[in-house]
């Protein structure tokens, strides 16, 4: 299955892209695995303990299931307001 990862803010800057399409071979892949892979692939230096995961525009837990076609986003500590 394929998922789209979108990057925002400092993650977009570090990854050098606003999104990427990833093919997953492991049907039990979770957002936490995707994040760890992205960290390795792009040299992201933001510890997962301070990041949150979202799928299709909703916050989810790091071990949530992922479906084909999902949009996955990693949310660094927000600083609006």
């Amino acid at each position, binding site marked *: 299955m394929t998922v789209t990862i*979108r990057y*925002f*803010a*400092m993650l*977009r*800057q570090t990854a050098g892209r606003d999104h990427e399409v990833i093919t997953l071979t492991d049907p039990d892949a979770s957002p936490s695995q995707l994040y760890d892979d992205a960290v390795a692939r792009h040299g992201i230096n933001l510890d997962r*303990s*301070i*990041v*949150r995961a*979202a799928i299709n*525009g*909703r*916050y989810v837990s790091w071990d949530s299931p992922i479906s084909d076609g999902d949009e996955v*986003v990693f*949310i*660094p*500590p*927000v*600083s*609006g*307001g």
Partner: protein
Amino acid sequence: MIDVPQPVGFTITEERILPTALRLSEQIIAEHPEIGGVVTFEGRVRNHHKGRTVTALEYSVYRDLAIREGERIVRATVERLELPVAIAIHRVGAVPIGEMAVWIYVGGAHRQAAFEGCREIIDEIKRHVPIWKHEWYGDGSDEWVLGNPQ
């Protein structure tokens, strides 16, 4: 005039908030005679951050999630405190120093609920709405500001 759901809603805009805030203040006062107390919060772009001079600032947003979280926050507060009016507007993109980044308007039958609601909404927005601040400083450096993780 920014298009914002009334009397309860949350919106994201790239426009200046002030004209809308002034207009809504007059309009809501006229349309809701049951309101006894209104509390507003204006969050503004400061010219300093942790001792450094800020020369420019830009907000990034993950819009789908931001709208969903913002609406959830405003609705939850309105229901908990039985507020007739609660509106929140967050500006994104480049915001000049001194201008409003966020504006919150809360009207209640009594002042206690209005104060509590306004404060809860801004606190929750700062915790959960996916908006990030990129600051440029007087010394030429820049930084993505990290909020306090939840």
